[in-house]
């Protein structure tokens, strides 16, 4: 029995999501290999070989895989899967895009977004936006799984796996990469950050989000937003935390001017520590906040920045 973990990377950097995924995979107590599919991605392979508890690193380095499009990467993974019993990827947009296609090619089910491993074939995953947790048993011989990375700690980086190239090349004549606009900022990505400070409708407008950014810089935090703030056009949509945005579970989540509707809570209620700053004492967010400060955010933020 062996496990193939699909690396999450951008051809230069192995993303932290892979470390959480390996940790989840390690709970199955089987030998683990990491597959790196990309173009000019040797650096990623080296970083992958340092991940603790991993035996081998497979590298499929070819121009056709540069943008990791699902059509050909899924064929590659499905082909390699014959030597493995588990194919596991992080529940990132890349994992969610590709893994179901692999499962279909292997004619097996996929178990999405697991938050716990119960046994070799039984897992726990959130349903109804996390308002219920389902225990699912796989009846297939091969298990295709995506992992909700916020539910697992990161694996260590003191390993030394052997790197072996994989020469399989699958062309992709069906879809073609056109362009990409990545929001380049040194601040950590929402799904990877250990501290997040989010703004809601209470921020009043987009410019006021700079008050959050100043505090975020002091804490090395990512900046998020509620759907209300995104819908009001304060900030771009990829900053949205919630049922229909990003699911996060940082060590510290500071909700500023966010009422905390169920849909928002669904995205951040698993954070280790939650702080709520709101002038409305009745805001639902206070129900789940470990520390609540009923005050005007425009007074609190500057003071908070100065104290950090």
């Amino acid at each position, binding site marked *: 029995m062996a496990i193939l973990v699909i690396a999450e990377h951008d051809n230069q950097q192995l993303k932290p999501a892979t470390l959480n995924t390996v940790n989840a995979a390690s709970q199955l107590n089987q030998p683990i290999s990491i597959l790196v599919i990309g173009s000019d991605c040797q650096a990623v392979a080296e970083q992958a070989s340092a991940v603790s508890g991993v035996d081998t690193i497979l590298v499929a380095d070819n121009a056709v895989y540069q943008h990791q499009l699902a059509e050909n990467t899924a064929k590659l993974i499905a082909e390699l899967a014959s030597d493995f019993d588990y194919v596991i990827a992080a529940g990132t947009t890349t994992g969610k*895009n590709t893994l*179901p296609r692999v499962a279909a090619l292997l004619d097996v089910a996929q178990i999405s977004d697991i938050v716990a491993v119960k046994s070799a074939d039984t897992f726990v995953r959130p349903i*109804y936006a996390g308002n219920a947790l389902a225990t699912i048993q796989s*009846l297939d011989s091969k298990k295709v799984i995506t992992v909700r990375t916020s539910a697992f700690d990161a694996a260590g980086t003191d390993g030394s796996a052997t790197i072996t190239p994989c020469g399989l090349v699958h062309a992709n004549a069906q879809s073609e990469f056109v362009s990409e606009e990545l929001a380049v900022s040194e601040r950590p*990505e929402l799904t990877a950050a250990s501290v997040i400070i989010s703004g809601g409708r209470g921020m009043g407008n987009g410019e006021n989000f700079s008050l959050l950014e100043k505090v975020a810089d002091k804490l090395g935090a990512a900046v998020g937003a509620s759907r209300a703030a995104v819908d009001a056009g304060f900030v771009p949509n990829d900053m949205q935390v919630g049922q229909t945005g990003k699911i996060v579970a940082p060590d510290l989540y500071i909700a500023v001017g966010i009422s905390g509707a169920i849909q928002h809570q669904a995205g951040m209620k698993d954070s280790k*520590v939650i702080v709520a700053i709101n002038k409305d004492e009745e805001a639902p967010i206070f129900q789940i906040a470990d520390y609540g*400060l009923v005050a005007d955010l425009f007074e609190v933020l500057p003071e*908070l920045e100065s*104290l*950090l």
Partner: protein
Amino acid sequence: MKVLVTVKRVIDYNVKIRVKPDGSDVDLTNVKMAVNPFCEIAVEEAVRMKEKGIASEIVVVSVGASEAQEQLRTALALGADRAILVETTANTESLNVAKLLAKVVEQEQPSLVIMGKQAIDSDNNQTGQMLAALCDMPQATFASEVSVTDNSVAVTREIDGGLQTLSLRLPAIVTTDLRLNEPRYASLPNIMKAKRKPLATVTPDDLGVTLSAHTQLLGVNPPPQRSAGVKVKSVAELVDKLKNEAKVI
């Protein structure tokens, strides 16, 4: 160009679900059901294509129990032309739904399939991708913008770091994300016309598909409840507690 869209019957977006006391499943008795919000966005996108003269016919498909006809009627009232119900209640996990849809796609030969990225009950986010594999079609998931040219479709997708644009050769499959469009309300005249639009019902046997279970639901339980913490009086007290009590900064 024929466009095929899928809709799923799920609980209403605003319903707070309760887990059954015996932990067997979520309690759906007397719960208001509706079209999955992401599926509504798929129907809306198809209807806009028809209004722009790009789509000539919109076929809406649902896989589920006979009650799903209600959701198909809603899709017809939003502007779909023809509805197909694949009636089954057993084994409706994503892979099996994809297999059934693959047969419908084979019969209908649409140039474009538009589906919701996930259903808000199972939250699987799988069926579109699986259908693409079974039909060997290119896919673009989490679409926030779709523009069709003669034999290809350009799709902007929401990915973790930002936006990515792909060009897919038709026929292709697109799954919708929340900001693709704002679904319209069904007008009363269209609601009345929907009653007269064709709604065919087929079964897995008619499609020559036999379904087997690939997973089994062992139980469902509510998530751990958070209890409300303490109120702090000042920013200073907050910082102190975060540093020394919670040790998170």
